């Protein structure tokens, strides 16, 4: 019997009716040919930003700003897929939806089942604190220890761009758990 999915953070079950795009990739190929991560992110950022009309009210992100935000968020998420696809299944799914004021992205990769508990603990820390406080705390720790500063990509996106994240864990077989990461990107301008 299949185990139930575990959900953390801001999760929406997306409706089929919104304009939607999909792509399937291989995590091992992304890791091997690293610049494909950047290329893929830049492609989708450009492709999706064309959805935004040229003339906009001041309250909305213009095309260039949106493209830049999308390129940053997609690059971080696809980098994670390339780095952390430890499950037997190496497939990476990309899916996006355009709503009136939001774009929603869902990026899926697969991890080993034993990696689920440590990762959910890591996410609890990330989702339940103040992103700005956590960001500076983790940067200082990273400088102190010389280690890689985990979660800084997510924290930058939450702190500087107001992006909200949701995570869903779905066991797919005995050796792989799928992680669906949702990013909710507002198209309303938040002036700094």
């Amino acid at each position, binding site marked *: 019997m299949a185990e139930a999915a575990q959900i953390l953070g801001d999760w929406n079950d997306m409706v089929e009716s919104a304009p939607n795009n999909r792509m399937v990739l291989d995590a091992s190929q992304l890791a091997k040919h690293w610049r494909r991560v*950047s290329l893929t992110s830049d492609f989708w950022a450009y492709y999706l930003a064309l959805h935004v009309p040229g003339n906009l009210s001041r309250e909305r992100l213009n095309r260039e700003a949106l493209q830049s935000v999308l390129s940053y968020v997609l690059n971080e998420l696809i980098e994670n897929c390339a780095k952390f696809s430890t499950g037997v299944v190496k497939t990476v799914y990309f899916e996006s939806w355009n709503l009136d004021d939001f774009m929603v992205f869902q990026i899926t990769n697969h991890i080993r089942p034993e990696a689920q508990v440590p990762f959910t603990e890591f996410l609890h820390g990330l989702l339940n604190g103040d992103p700005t406080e956590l*960001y*500076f705390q983790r940067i200082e720790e*990273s400088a102190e220890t010389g280690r890689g500063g985990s979660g800084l*990509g997510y924290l930058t996106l939450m702190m500087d*761009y107001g992006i909200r994240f949701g995570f869903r864990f779905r066991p797919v077989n005995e050796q792989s758990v799928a992680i669906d990461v949702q990013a909710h990107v507002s198209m309303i301008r938040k002036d700094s």
Partner: protein
Amino acid sequence: MTIQMVNGEDFSVQHDPGTKTVTFAGSIRLQTMEAYAPLRKLLDTAIAEAGSGATVFLDFRELRFLNSSGINTISRFVIDVRKQNDVMLKALGNQEIYWQQKSLTNLQKLWPKVLIEIQ
């Protein structure tokens, strides 16, 4: 003291000891923190060669993208220069490049003495 560079297929980073400036250009999205080591070494050279009390300029105006590992590398560098408290830093940004508008001032939150000029 000569001009030194770190180049990749999508980027270049140059240190000019004459102007005490490290100039970043292109899109820097390296795979690991270890991959950033040559870039960090270039930054450390800029500090070592600048001399006590000098200001080192970090010119990001032509840098379109920097991933979170890159932002972490620059942030750790700023923290280490803060600890030495001997050389000043000034970061030059570009108003037209969105990530710089959003994230460059975070360097000042790490060390209030860092000057930020977004043009």
